[in-house]
Every structure is written in structure tokens, then in C-alpha cells.
């Protein structure tokens, strides 16, 4: 807690380097080739999500998330991941259930918004299993934006004066023009990220309907990017509506077609969240054994996301969630 007149010295750990020269060197050699990048989720996770990597999840926790990739990370028992906890709700819950992460930049974790707190995520963080550094939704998002802009840092005006600042890896700086105090936040270049989109072509050109959240910047900040998509479309369909494109193909390493891929999360214009199943998650998490049985059934006991969907009611249930979606076309 803050003392009057105290000068806060941030003590949070910086889990990734904001070195833009190193990032430029990486992006220089990243292929821009026009090649078919379609693959299974299993292959994408196996090839691009390595133990120890720093991982980023697109969407907003329970809205337009890539559940298929998150499950597969657990299924492949990936370990020691770093995580950008940017509005991380159900995505966080899944990765923590798999004990996949050991460090986390925190803006919003553990909670599931109006649904309450995840008991298992709380236990895991309270156990000391995860090194934590604090941020806020804006500043963690602006860390992606700094990276996307090719800058090592950005100034900002929030967080100063609070314990979020104290446990962050931000710094205080002076504006070169106005002389005022500003927050300086370091660029965040995740090793790998995943974004679930409405449509993508085989090369990775991707379009999202509805709000972007922080995905424009996250897609550009990530060194490797997996795109999962409700539908693979032709490049002609992308070119027919170029204002909707948010991710051009040369940013993308893998394209996986996963219908209902945000389930049990909401996919605006497609299907609403399965609140019953999200409540089930919160319920089974109350004890560890129950959670393990649940994971054995839904993740370790299924070969892929498709089998999980079948367990959850398949097309029938998905149809119901489509009916519940207010933007359904």
C-alpha cells in the first residue's frame, strides 16, 4: 500500500525482451511466402508452441477465443509457458487446469467477469506456482501496440501511483516536450500467439467481425501466429472485402479450420457462450480430483476439439447456441 509522498520503484519481473532490434531481425527472416498453411490444431501446437515459450491468447477470455488450441496445449502437456494475461478468463482457466504456465503478465486473470472466480486458478496462483507481474488491460494491450509499432516502449498515463505500478515492470519517465511524468511500458513480443477468426484463407489472410479487442496489435506483436477460423474461404472472398481484413497472410504461421472453435466461448455473429458448460467448469474446479476427472473426460480423453464438441452435444447444442446468439446472421 502506498505511503504519502512515496516514490514507487517498480519491482516486477520482465518476462520477455522489448529489444526491437532482435524483433526486427526475427521478422526479417520470417517467410512471406504464399504457401498453404492449413494444418490440424495438433500439428500447429506441436510445431509452434514449445515448452517454455511466451504465449498470447486473442479475443477476450470467453469471447472469440481459440479453445481448440488451448485444449491442445493442455492435451500435449505443454509446460513452463509464459502467458500474457490480457483479459484472460476461460482461456486462463484452461491453461491453468493443465498446469501449463509458470509466469504471467497479469491484467485480468482468475475471474470470469460476471460469472465469478475460478477456484482452481486461485489455488494455482496462491500456491506460488506462477511468477506474476502486474499490468492493466490498457497497458498490457499497449505493450502489444508498442511491439506492433516496432517500438521498444510506449508512454502511457495510467497505472502510475498504484501498487499495479509497484509490481509491474514499467518505469517512470519524463516527457521530453512537456516535462510531465509519464509511465513507460516495454514492448511485448510473445513467442507465439493464437487468434480465432471468422474467416481466413489457406495462406492466413484473416477477417474478424465485430470488435477487435486487442487482436490487431497482438497479431503483429507475436513472432509466430496460429490462426483458427470458423471457415476457410477463398482469397477472392478476402479480396472482395479488404476493409474487413485485420491480419495479412505473412504474419501467419498456421491456419486451422475449427468450426465452433470459440466454444464454450461466445463467437459474435455465430453462436453465444455456453453458460451451462462454463458454470460446470467453475463447479468441478472446487476440488482437484473433480477437475482431473473432468479434464480426463473432455481434454485428455478426446483426440481433438471435434470429439469434445460431440461430448458437449455436437451440432444440436451448437445449433441452440446459434439460436441464442443475438447477432446471428
Amino acid at each position, binding site marked *: *500500500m*502506498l*505511503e*504519502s*509522498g512515496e516514490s514507487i520503484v517498480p519491482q516486477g519481473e520482465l518476462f520477455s525482451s522489448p529489444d526491437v532490434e532482435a524483433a526486427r531481425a526475427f521478422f526479417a527472416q520470417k517467410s512471406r511466402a504464399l504457401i498453404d498453411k492449413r494444418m490440424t490444431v495438433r500439428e500447429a501446437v506441436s510445431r509452434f508452441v514449445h515448452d517454455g515459450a511466451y504465449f498470447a491468447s486473442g*479475443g*477476450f*477470455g*470467453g*469471447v472469440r477465443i481459440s479453445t481448440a488450441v488451448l485444449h491442445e496445449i493442455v492435451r500435449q502437456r505443454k509446460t513452463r509457458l509464459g502467458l500474457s*494475461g490480457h483479459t484472460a478468463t476461460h482461456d486462463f482457466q484452461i491453461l491453468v487446469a493443465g498446469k501449463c504456465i509458470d509466469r504471467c503478465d497479469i*491484467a*485480468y*486473470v*482468475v*475471474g470470469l*467477469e*460476471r460469472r465469478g*472466480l475460478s477456484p482452481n*486458478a*486461485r489455488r494455482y*496462483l*496462491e500456491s*506460488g506456482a506462477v*511468477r*506474476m507481474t*502486474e499490468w*492493466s*488491460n*490498457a497497458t498490457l*494491450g*499497449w505493450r502489444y501496440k508498442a511491439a506492433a509499432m516496432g517500438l521498444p516502449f510506449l508512454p*502511457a*498515463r*495510467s*497505472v*502510475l*501511483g*498504484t*501498487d*499495479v505500478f509497484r*509490481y509491474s515492470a514499467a518505469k*517512470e519517465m519524463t516527457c521530453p516536450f512537456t516535462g*510531465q*511524468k*509519464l509511465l513507460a511500458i516495454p514492448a511485448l513480443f510473445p513467442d507465439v500467439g493464437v487468434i480465432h477468426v471468422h474467416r481466413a484463407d489457406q495462406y492466413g489472410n484473416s477477417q474478424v467481425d*465485430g*470488435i*477487435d*479487442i*486487442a487482436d*490487431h*496489435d497482438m497479431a503483429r506483436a507475436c513472432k509466430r501466429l496460429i490462426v483458427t477460423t470458423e471457415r476457410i474461404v477463398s482469397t477472392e472472398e478476402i479480396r472482395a472485402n479488404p476493409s474487413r481484413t485485420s491480419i495479412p497472410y505473412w504474419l501467419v504461421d498456421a491456419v486451422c479450420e475449427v468450426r465452433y472453435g470459440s466454444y464454450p466461448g*461466445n463467437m*459474435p455473429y455465430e453462436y453465444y*457462450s455456453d*453458460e451451462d458448460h462454463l458454470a460446470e467448469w467453475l463447479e468441478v474446479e472446487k476440488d482437484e480430483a473433480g477437475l482431473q476427472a473432468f479434464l480426463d473426460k473432455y481434454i485428455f480423453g478426446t483426440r481433438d476439439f471435434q470429439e469434445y464438441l460431440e461430448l458437449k452435444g455436437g451440432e444440436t447444442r451448437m445449433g441452440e447456441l446459434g439460436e441464442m*446468439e*443475438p*447477432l446471428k446472421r
Partner: protein
Amino acid sequence: MSEANPRYNLMELMVCVAARQLEDGKTAVIGTGMPLAAAMLAQKTTAPNLIVMFEAGSIAPTLIKLPVSVADSYTHTGAIMHSSMDEIMESCQRGLVDYTFLGGAQIDMYGNINTSMIGTDFQHPKVRLPGSGGANDLASLCWKTLVITPHDQRRFVRRLDFLTTPGYLTGPGAREAAGLPAGGGPYKVITTLALIGFHPQSKRMQAESLHPGVSRQDVVDNTDFKMLFADPLPVTPEPTEAELRILREEVDPQGFIIGKQA
């Protein structure tokens, strides 16, 4: 504390009181839950042109139902613009957003909020909470911060375990000294007991009206710090029949926020 008035419950009272704090034709970034119920009620009563934005990116939607998430489809419906979190947060930073409306776990007399952890060791919290989310940013960057929260000693504390979201920090001038934009800060706190403002000089919490049936002593007993009281100290006006009808029938017919109707 006397028995609840049978015409309405405490949640309904709080939402109605909250709604009245939002001026028409202003901009507001609103979280889910009671803040949003209040904003929807305001739009349907005294502030039809209140501009609601969600931190995930939706701008000025036509709200048809309470969303579960500040990003979900119910934030998208009939929006003027589907944007992104940076667009919203930068609008706040630029000075374009009048209100934000938050919940809270712990709050102190300067309106600082803790939603990060209970305990003394940051890396080994007794209770880990979600963290800032957008709250720190919104309370730093919007002009007026509204908070809605139950009122008890566990929440209205002398000393936060963790200062997540800035109120007036350590007192007058502290926000500006820390580097936060000038002129912002907590505006009102709506609790189960009272409508609370902040003393213009000391920036300390000052109860402005007590809810029907609530005494000064009730507030004192449920507050771990020294609460100031305005003079005069009226009774909070009760919800009107019109407010209650709209709240129950249009804003929250499923009772997510105000509870199921009998």
C-alpha cells in the same frame, strides 16, 4: 438497520441511485453487472443519450439485454462503431470520456480500490483476485469514477492490501503528483447503506445521503475508517415506481443483478 422496504430490495435501490448519477449526453465506459444495469436504467429514464462504451471495443450499442462479458455479443447490438480496446482506452486518455463505473473488493477513504489480492506477500497471496482489468486505466483516465459496492468493514478498510485502482491515492494533489491526468478521480460511491461523495478539499469519503432506514451509526459500524457526513444529510430518495418497473421489466427481467422477482 431497519428491514428492507417491501417495495424494492437493496440491489434495486442501489441500481436506481446509481442511474441517477449519470448525466445525459455524456460518455461512459461501463463494466458488466450493476454498473451496466444502472447505465441501462439511466438510458431509459433520465439520460436517454448517455453514450455507453465497453472497454473491449463496442461504442454506443443499443442495449437489449445485460451482457455477461464486456466483449460479448450483447455489447455489440446496434452499435455505432465496433472498435477495439485501444480505441476505448485512448479516448479515455484523450479526455473524451466523462464517467467510468466500477465495482470493487476493498475500498479506502480516498476511493482507492483493491481487486488484486488479499494478503501481504504479493507472490504468495492469501486470496488472489483478478487484478486491474481495465479498472486502473479507466479510473486514471476518465473524468469521474463511480463505484458500486456492498458496504461492510471488510470492504471499507483503513488500509488496502493492494492499491489496484487509483482514487485520490494519498489525498489532495496526489494523483497529479504521481503523474496521473489532472482533474479526474472518484465521484460517487453507491453502497448498500449510502450514497457517498468526496469532500472537496480533503478528498475523503463523505456520505451525502443515507438509504431509507439506515442510520449514521450503521455507516460508522460498517466502515473501518472515519467516514465524513455531509450536513445536511438527507435520506436517499427511494426508487420510483417507474424506475422499478423499467428496471425489472426492461433492464434485468431475468434478475441477474437485482435477483429473481417473487
